[in-house]
């Protein structure tokens, strides 16, 4: 299969993720969409690694996974805290700060 197709897939996933961030209200889902975007990027790295015949791209993918895991830790901490305070995981409810 043409490696370019993986790229298209990656772009598609990224777009889905990005649109998801914008349209979904639940903080967890929003966060998952972001993870989806990160993984889309990972896919792109791996694909390029394949296309370019260079292993560095795959190394990046590992790093990304680790970083994403850290992000989950921090993110969930924040989301949980706010859920406990507000009894709501909707990102739209958190709009005290504006204008």
């Amino acid at each position, binding site marked *: 299969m043409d490696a370019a197709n993986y790229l298209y897939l990656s772009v598609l996933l990224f777009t889905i993720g990005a649109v998801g961030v*914008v349209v979904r209200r639940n903080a967890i889902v929003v966060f998952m969409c972001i993870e989806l975007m990160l993984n889309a990027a990972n896919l792109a790295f791996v694909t390029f690694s394949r296309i370019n015949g260079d292993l560095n791209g795959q190394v990046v993918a590992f790093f990304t996974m680790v970083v994403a895991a850290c992000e989950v830790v921090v993110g969930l901490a924040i989301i949980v805290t706010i859920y406990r305070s507000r009894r709501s995981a909707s990102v739209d409810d958190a*709009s005290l700060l504006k*204008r």
Partner: protein
Amino acid sequence: MTTSNSLVYLIALPLLGAIILILAGRRADKWGHILGTLMSASSFVVGLYQLSQMLGRSNQARPVTQKLFEWISVGTFKVDAALLLDQLSICFVLLITGVGTLIHIYSISYMSHDHDRRRFFAYLNLFIAAMLLLVLGNSYLNLYVGWEGVGLASYLLIGFWNQKPAYATASKKAFVMNRIGDMGLSFAIMIAFASVGTVSFEGIKEHVHHTSTGALTAIGIMLLVAATGKSAQFPLQAWLGDAMAGPTPVSALIHAATMVTAGVYLITRSSFIFDAAPTAQLLVVIVGAITLLFGALIGTAKDDIKKALAASTMSQIGYMILGAGLGPVGYAFAIMHLLTHGFFKAGMFLGAGSVMHGMNDEVNMRKYGALRKFMPITFATFGLGYLAILGVPPFAGFYSKDMIIETAFNSGGTKGIILGSVTLLGAGITAFYMTRVMILTFTGKSRWDEEVHPHESPLLMWLPMAVLAIGSVSSGFLLSRGDALVNWLAPLFEEHGEHSELLKPIVVSGLALMMVAIGVAIAFLKYSRQEVASVAPEDVSVFTKIARQDLMQDRFNEAVFMRPGQHLTQVLVKTDEAVIDGAVRGVGQMAMGSGALLRGVQSGFVRSYAALILVGAVLLIAAIWVVTN
């Protein structure tokens, strides 16, 4: 040219007096009037000394100069503070200081009850100094300093009693209208510098022959504008009547004898320009002719003695201007009339002051009558002045005015006939209104109120009147004897060729006397044969009404200049507030408004922020796409 070191004292003495009197304040109240009078008198003495020196020199060597210091020097614009005393200015010096001193003396008594007499003398001294500078400056710019200086002194003196709002307004009006004239002088100086490269009399005179007629005409017209302002000539005449708000000695000195004649001086002094600019010269004549009738007509309807005299002054200066506009042949006669007028008009004003002094400052002639008995000396001196202004031989006016009328007739062609007729007509009207003044004031029945107790004025007041009366009687004869003044001034003016003689002098005199007789007769018929109402009748002809309102001069000025000006000012004030500052504020508000509007982007919803980022990212891609393709 002869130089002298003493010219400056002419000016310095009265100036010093003014400074001392102003700075010393109330401390000088006791002796201020004495000092003021002494300063004026000593300036007169210096003037006499200068005259004696001058007489001792040959015709050509008579002018003397004194350079004081370099005043302004920038590039080629070089003006020295320098004085020039020649045959023309010595006439003025003596008139100013002589009449001035007499009026100082008069004022000591006239103003004795005034709380601010010292200040009055300070102003008088200031005026003398400025007026002397006006006639002694050797360049137009030096003249200009004096020119505005006398305007200032006149402003201060008209407004001497400025606690009365009307008087304060009168002084302001005088100053502003004078400034319009001054603007003309500014223009004249600018044009002179731009076209000739110098502003001194001598410098311009030297270059006059290779200067374009256009430039000279422009200079001449602008000088005429200046003259109309200062000398209350048409169309800048309206301030003079109101200027009578000042104390009467002021009217006598400034608004009759000296300052208002500065225009005549200016034109005469600029003879070399006018001689080379016929158009300007013609305008001078026209202005003079209009004004002499204008003033005379106003004079016929005035009940205020001072305003009647003021109108007369305007008219008489019209004669002088007209004379000066007739070219080389007329200058000397203009000056002669100026000098004789200085005597008789000052005398009459002082007389009027004397009357007012005895009548509790009443100025309405309809409240006078029969004062002959109560004020014999005033009547006598005033009467002599009256005869002089009428031009009854051998009084002063006969010599000077007839010469102008004669010159007017002889100026050639239709112009001569028109001018001659105008001057003759003026003489007739003059006779009418002056007779009216005499009758209303001194003869008939008394019309004054009970509490008024007319009395003759004290010595210090009548003495100057008497001296001036002597001048009114004799000055014309003395000045014209053997063409004394004409010959004295002759070296200053261009030679003039023989003139065609339209009418013989004796015919002119006859005609003039006839007109005078008619005027006198009408006045007698109108005012002596019937009772004079102590309140001005209202059921008078339209012409009288118009004449009472100074031929609508104020209405005209108000309608054409003042009210549109005020309106424009108001509009501009509002425009500045609303449009210009409004635009500035608008920019500020626009910034604030757009800030408030853009604030809306910050909705507080994290998803909208994310959308913003997403849109931003897409736009970035699009932008790069556009740029690179």
